[in-house]
C-alpha cells in the first residue's frame, strides 16, 4: 500500500513540474517580428473547409468540387498574387460536433491561414465562437442565415457570402408588390432557423403593403411528407403559395399542389429551385410557371452557352474535377465563392489574417459567373452582407427563365 502512495505522490509532482512549465508555443505567435500569420508564405496559402462528404447532405459535395476546380485554375495561372492556394477539406457528415473537431484540426494541426466556405448553418454556429476566439477568418460560409451579416461587431472574423434568407424574402415581397399587390399568401415552411428566417423576413417585408399571409403551416425536417399541410393550405382562400422548403419537401409540395388541383402563383425558395434535385423528380410538367430567385448563372440553361464565364467554368470543371456534374448549380456556387475568395486574397495589403478580413469587409467587385448587375459589396460594420441582390426567375419549358431586372434588397 505504501508503494501506491509513493507512486501517487511521484505522479502529482511530475504533473506539477510540467504544469509549471505550461506550454510555451501557445497560439503560434511566439515567432515575433515576422508580421505574417500561419498558413501563408510568399508562394502559398493554405485554406481549410469542412463539408458533408458523407451522410444526409452529401449532395452538397459538389460545392467543394466547384471551389477546388476554381483554385486549381488560378494555381495553373500562377496563383493569387503569386501564391498557390491549397484548399484542405475534411468531412463532417453534416454533424456540428464533427465540424468543431474539424475546425480545431484545420487551425491547430493543418495551420490554415483561414477557414473558407464551411457548409451548414448549425455547423458554422458551432465553430464561430472558436474561430473568433482564435482570430482566424471564417469567411464566405456556405449558408444563407441572416446572422452572418447582422452580428459583425460580436463576430468580426466571420462572414457569409450568398444572399441571406431575409434578402430573398424581401425580393419575393418586392415581386408580389409589383405583380400581385393584393396577394393572399399561404406559406409552407420548415420549422427551423432557415424556415423562420425566411418567413419572418417575408412578414416584415410586407408590412405596410396590401399583401397578407392568410395561412401558414410548418413541417419538421424529419417528417416523412408534407401532404396534410398541403391539403390545409389548399383549402385556404390564398391565391399565392410561398414554398419555404428544402429539396425533398420542395418536390413533394410541387407534386401535392398538382394532385390537389391547387392553381395559384407558386413561389419556391432558392434552396429548392434546383432542376436536378427538385423539379425533375417532381416532373417538369408540374413545375411550369414556378417562380423563384437566382443570383448566379444557371449552368443547365442554354442562355449562357456563349457566355465567357460559363465557358471558363465548364472547361475548368471538366479539366480539374471531371467527376463533377457541370449542370449541377452547386458546382457554380462553389466556383463563384472561390472566385470571391481569390479576389479577397488579392485585396490583402499585407499577408496577415487581419488584412484578409479588412479586404473581405471592404469590397466592391464583380464576379463574372454571378448574374449581370449583381456584385459583391461590403463596407465595414455597416454592411456585412456580400451579395444582396437577386433576380426573379420563372420555370418555362425545360429551364428557368430570368424575369425583369435585378432586385436590390433594401436590408
Amino acid at each position: 500500500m505504501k508503494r501506491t502512495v509513493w507512486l501517487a505522490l511521484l505522479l502529482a509532482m511530475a504533473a506539477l513540474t510540467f504544469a509549471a512549465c505550461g506550454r510555451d508555443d501557445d497560439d503560434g505567435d511566439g515567432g515575433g517580428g515576422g508580421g505574417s500569420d500561419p498558413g501563408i508564405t510568399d508562394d502559398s496559402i493554405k485554406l481549410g473547409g469542412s463539408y458533408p462528404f458523407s451522410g444526409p447532405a452529401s449532395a452538397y459535395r459538389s460545392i467543394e468540387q466547384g471551389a477546388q476546380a476554381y483554385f486549381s485554375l488560378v494555381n495553373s495561372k500562377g496563383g493569387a498574387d503569386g501564391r498557390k492556394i491549397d484548399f484542405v477539406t475534411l468531412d463532417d457528415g453534416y454533424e456540428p460536433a464533427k465540424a468543431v473537431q474539424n475546425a480545431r484540426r484545420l487551425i491547430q494541426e493543418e495551420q490554415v491561414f483561414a477557414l473558407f466556405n464551411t457548409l451548414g448553418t448549425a455547423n458554422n454556429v458551432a465553430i464561430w465562437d472558436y474561430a473568433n476566439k482564435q482570430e482566424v477568418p471564417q469567411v464566405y460560409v456556405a449558408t444563407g442565415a441572416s446572422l452572418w451579416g447582422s452580428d459583425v461587431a460580436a463576430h468580426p472574423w466571420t462572414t457569409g457570402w450568398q444572399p441571406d434568407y431575409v434578402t430573398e424574402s424581401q425580393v419575393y415581397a418586392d415581386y408580389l408588390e409589383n405583380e400581385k399587390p393584393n396577394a393572399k399568401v399561404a406559406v409552407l415552411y420548415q420549422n427551423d432557423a432557415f424556415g423562420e428566417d425566411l418567413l419572418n423576413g417575408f412578414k416584415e417585408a410586407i408590412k405596410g403593403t396590401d399583401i397578407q399571409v392568410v395561412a401558414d403551416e410548418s413541417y419538421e425536417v424529419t417528417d416523412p411528407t408534407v401532404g396534410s399541410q398541403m391539403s390545409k393550405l389548399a383549402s385556404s382562400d390564398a391565391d399565392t403559395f410561398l414554398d419555404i422548403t428544402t429539396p425533398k419537401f420542395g418536390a413533394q409540395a410541387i407534386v401535392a399542389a398538382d394532385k390537389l388541383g391547387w392553381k395559384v402563383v407558386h413561389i419556391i425558395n432558392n434552396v429548392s429551385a434546383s432542376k436536378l434535385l427538385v423539379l425533375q423528380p417532381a416532373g417538369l410538367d408540374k413545375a411550369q410557371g414556378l417562380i423563384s430567385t437566382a443570383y448566379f448563372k444557371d449552368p443547365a440553361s442554354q442562355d449562357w452557352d456563349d457566355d465567357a464565364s460559363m465557358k471558363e467554368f465548364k472547361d475548368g470543371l471538366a479539366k480539374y474535377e471531371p467527376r463533377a456534374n457541370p449542370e449541377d448549380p452547386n458546382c457554380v456556387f462553389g466556383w463563384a465563392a472561390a472566385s470571391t475568395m481569390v479576389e479577397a486574397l488579392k485585396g490583402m495589403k499585407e499577408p496577415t489574417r487581419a488584412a484578409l478580413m479588412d479586404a473581405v469587409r471592404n469590397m466592391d467587385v464583380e464576379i463574372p459567373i454571378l448574374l449581370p448587375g449583381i456584385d459583391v459589396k461590403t463596407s465595414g460594420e455597416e454592411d456585412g452582407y456580400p451579395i444582396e441582390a437577386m433576380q426573379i426567375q420563372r420555370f418555362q419549358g425545360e429551364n428557368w427563365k430570368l424575369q425583369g431586372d435585378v432586385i436590390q434588397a433594401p436590408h
Partner: protein
Amino acid sequence: MTDRRLRIALVCAVALVAVLIPFLFGPYRVGQFTLVLIYAVAALGLNLLVGYNGQISLGHGAFFALGAYTGALLIEKADMPYLATLPAAGALCFVAGYLFGVPALRLRGLYLALVTLGLAIAMPQLIKRFDDLTEGTQGLTVEQPVAPSWTGLADDQFLYLLSLAAAAVMFLAAWNLMRGPIGRSVKAVRDGEIPASTIGVDLAATKTRVFALSAAYAGVAGALYVLALGFVAPEAFTLTISFAFLAAIVVGGLATISGALLGALFIEFVPVYASDVNDALTGVIYGGVLIAFMWVLPEGAAGLPRRLRELVLGRRSPREETLKAPVRGVPAGKA
C-alpha cells in the same frame, strides 16, 4: 503475486502517460485525447451493463445525449458552475435509467436490445421537439471552462486534466464496485439467472440498478462532452454514437475495466485516420478494421497480453476459463 505487481506497475505507467499527454501534444491532439477519456467513461458504463451483467443496450447514446443537454442547459440557463453539472447530469440519468429500466428489464436479451434501440432512434427527434429549451437543430453553444490563471495551463490542457480526474474517479468506482460483493451478484446474474436467484440475488433489483448506474456513467460522459466541445446539437447523438460505444467495449474487451479505455482510443482515432486514407471509403475502412480486429483478438484489446502469453508459452493461462464467459455477452438461451 507477480501478476498483481505487474498490473499495478502497468496501471501506474498508464496513469503517468495520461498525466503527461497534455504537455507532450498540441491542442488539437489534446482535444482528441480529452474525447477519448469521455468516450471511455461512457463505454465503461455500457460495459458494466453488457459485459458484467449480460444485458444488451443499443441505446446508450440516448443517455449520453440526455447528460449532454442536462449539462448544457444547467450551464447556459441556470448558470450552474460547470463542475456541479457532472454529478447533476449523472444523477438525472441514473433516475431516467432506473425509470426506463423498470419496465424494459422485464425483457431479455435481444428484446431489450430492441427497446433500447428505439430509445436511441427517438432521442434526436425528441431533442428537436423541445426546441424552446434545446434550440432544436440549431444546437446550443455552451461556455467552456477556462483554466484558472494560477495553474499556468492552457484551456485545452485544463479541460483534459479535468476530464482525466473525472474519468479516474469513475474508473476507480467501477473497479471497486465490480470486485466486491455487488460485482459478484452482478456477474452471477449474467452467468445464470436461476442459480443466481437460488443463492439469494434479487434479479430485478440488480438488473435495474446496473442499468441505472450505466445510464449515469453515460450521463456524466455526456456532460463532460459538452464542456469539451462547447456545443451540442441533436445530430451528434444519432445511432452512430450508440453503436460506437458498443463497438468500443467489444473491441476493448467485454467485462474488463481497461477495455473501455482501449475501445475509446479505437473509436476516436480509427475513423479519423480512416477518413485520411480515403474520404469516400471512411465507413468501409472503419468497418474493415473492426472486422479484422474481432478476428485477430476476439476477446478485445484487453485480452492481448493473455493472447501473447499463449503464443509465446504455448499454453493456456489459468485465467482463461473465468474470462471466456463474458465474451458471449448474452448468456446462452436468453434471446
